[in-house]
């Protein structure tokens, strides 16, 4: 076992660091959070730079335009990107992390040549239409219908939690193509262009006031049958193929952000006066910093274990679920600590006294994105109990 970079990894790290240093410095100021057109063009510009330099689709196979990097190189790239304060994947998330890999695995040659390049260059943004108001944890109960009519599917229904829908060019959709089959069997995976008639996008404001979420209301949207990925009624399997691409790097970006928030919070505690000393001098607060620091270091080590296993060609069963539950707990605890450090300054979501207090209050609320998104903590606990520990199903 090792933590040192191998010779080739060290070489890769220094190349990446060099490129990032020059490139990040050349970027314009990032747009405001709610400036959607600005964010789209900023993220697309960054993705274009990655593409030109050969870093786009870093973990995608090279025959599909990616770099074909190892999981360890992918981790190094993400570490160096954070250290250089490079932009994150932004609105490219669904395309690069999910839709693209799914098309690589299950798409036809025509579908691959039509869609993959746009994802890699940043020209096309994607969103995800999986969850529905009545189908959250029980996703396979989804009811958005797609009727076959000639060469089209005619889609009607409602989708929810569709991040970046207002900016996306395409939506990866799960729809029910066989209403007589319950659950997993009658579902298909479709590519839906977002400029079609019948799509109504309505923003859904989150607890921290951001508008990246949206609901999709679909009224007889006609999508060509050629946009079907995989076989009709085989969409559940298609949606799960990306799980086999997971190599332990899925939460690295979030973990880097959290570590950075943790360090900001230490700096704030040390510079904030309280009772004639500083907040850092409060024993109970320092103790909690110690526990959370240990937890963050452990989450990094857990990530490195998972990436190491990924480099051997697979994940340990349950490791993704376990990471997510532990990470959510740490995030919530860090949010609680932020409020203790800020005290009355936490009453404002905008920065107070010229310090980054708003970001810290936001991070407290953002913890719910980890404990709820992509399968709640309780669903992850069920997965671990049944698939790792072998406990019997409830029914």
């Amino acid at each position, binding site marked *: 076992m090792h933590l*040192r970079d191998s010779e080739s990894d060290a070489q890769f790290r220094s190349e990446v660091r060099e490129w990032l240093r020059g490139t990040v410095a050349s970027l314009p100021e990032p747009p405001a959070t709610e400036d959607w057109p600005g964010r789209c063009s900023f993220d697309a510009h960054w993705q274009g730079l990655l593409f030109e330099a050969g870093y786009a689709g870093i973990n995608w196979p090279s025959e599909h335009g990616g770099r074909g990097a190892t999981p360890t190189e992918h981790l190094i790239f993400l570490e160096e990107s954070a250290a250089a304060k490079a932009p994150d994947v932004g609105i490219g998330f669904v395309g690069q992390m999910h839709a693209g890999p799914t098309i690589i695995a299950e798409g036809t040659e025509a579908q691959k040549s039509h869609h993959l390049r746009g994802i890699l260059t940043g020209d096309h943004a994607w969103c995800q239409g999986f969850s529905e108001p009545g189908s959250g944890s029980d996703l396979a109960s989804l009811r958005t219908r797609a009727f076959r009519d000639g060469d089209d599917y005619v889609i009607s229904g409602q989708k929810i939690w569709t991040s970046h829908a207002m900016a996306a060019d395409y939506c990866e959709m799960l729809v029910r193509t066989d209403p007589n089959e319950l659950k997993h069997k009658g579902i298909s995976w479709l590519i839906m262009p977002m400029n079609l008639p019948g799509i109504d996008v309505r923003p859904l404001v989150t607890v921290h006031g951001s508008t990246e979420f949206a609901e999709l209301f679909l009224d007889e949207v006609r999508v060509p049958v050629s946009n079907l990925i995989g076989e009709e009624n085989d969409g559940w399997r298609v949606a799960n193929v990306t799980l086999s691409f997971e190599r332990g790097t899925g939460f690295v970006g979030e973990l880097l952000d959290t570590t950075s928030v943790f360090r900001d919070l230490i700096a704030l505690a040390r510079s904030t006066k309280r009772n004639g000393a500083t907040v850092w001098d409060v024993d109970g607060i320092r103790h909690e910093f*110690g526990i959370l620091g240990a937890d963050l270091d*452990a989450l990094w080590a857990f990530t490195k274990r998972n990436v*190491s296993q990924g480099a051997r060609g697979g994940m340990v069963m349950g490791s993704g679920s376990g990471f997510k539950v532990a990470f959510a707990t740490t995030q919530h605890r860090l949010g609680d600590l932020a409020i203790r450090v800020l005290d009355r300054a936490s009453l404002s979501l905008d920065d107070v006294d010229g310090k980054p207090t708003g970001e810290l209050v936001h991070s407290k609320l953002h913890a719910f994105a980890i404990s709820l998104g992509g399968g709640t903590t309780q669903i992850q606990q069920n997965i671990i109990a049944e698939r790792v520990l072998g406990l019997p199903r409830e029914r």
Partner: protein
Amino acid sequence: MDLQPTDDQLALIEMVTGFASDRFPIDVVRSFGEPNGFDRDRWTELAALGTFGLALPEGEGGVGLDFIDAVLVHEALGSALVPGPLLAATLSAGLVDGVLDGSVLPAIVDIPHDGPIMVEYFRSSDVLLMVGDDGVRVAPSAHAVGIDIVHSTDPTSPVSILESVPAGDLIGGPELAVAWRQRGSLLASAQLSGNSTGSTNLAVAYAKEREQFGRPIGSFQGLKHLLADSWIRTEIARSSVWAAGVMIDEPDVGSVDRAVSGARLTAARAATENAKTCIQVHGGMGFTWEVDAHLFLKRAWVLETVFGSVDDAAEIVANLYAAD
């Protein structure tokens, strides 16, 4: 970077796990705590496996592996609650004659600045190792006056209180004391990590077999979530324990002190919380002497005090982060 065990390391873990279940089944573990219950023959078998000299160079009679290998072995030993002065023997095997082959039994004390001088396995020991700020000393155990505790909190960790520490002979200076405290702390944390696996396995097996309301209690979500949390705490603990072990071998990759203290925090939490969950899952039977669940909790309570407390560890992690 590679933070998963190699095939050789997996084979080592399997070998030690197999040995422990064969030669240290739970009734043997329990008997070690009884008066005159220390079985020197079994201790010698454990020594003959190479347990205490894993990270010693071959020229010194050791196996010549890395410190992380010792960490993995202590994890396996902790999982089976293997008794005896494991840390004392592993730390001193290269410096005190007879420890490596098990013929000399050491006890160890990190001399406290205040409070009682409690020493595990002192009553069976031949030599006493004393870790102080100025270095490490060794004395025949007969030179120390100790009172054996009749009821040790952990029945499988017999303990004595010393009136004072004897002068002894210096076997290493302050650097050795620092190294032993660091390594001893991590080996105790490795045993805590293993302990958390052992209690989780016991609880999961019971949850599959015990039926109430006409079905196995492990089918209820209330228990599933408890046990999933146990598994997660173990994975977190072993992640930090492994990382700290590798950092002792590769000290240039980060702060070893922060990693070792972090490992204590995550491993102590995993061991104590998982053992409590194990007792809870066993219901009323978990509260009885005959069910083994309490042995995990009581061993965890001992180990979390060895070479530093969780409060010390939190203070160290916080301050090293702030200084970084």
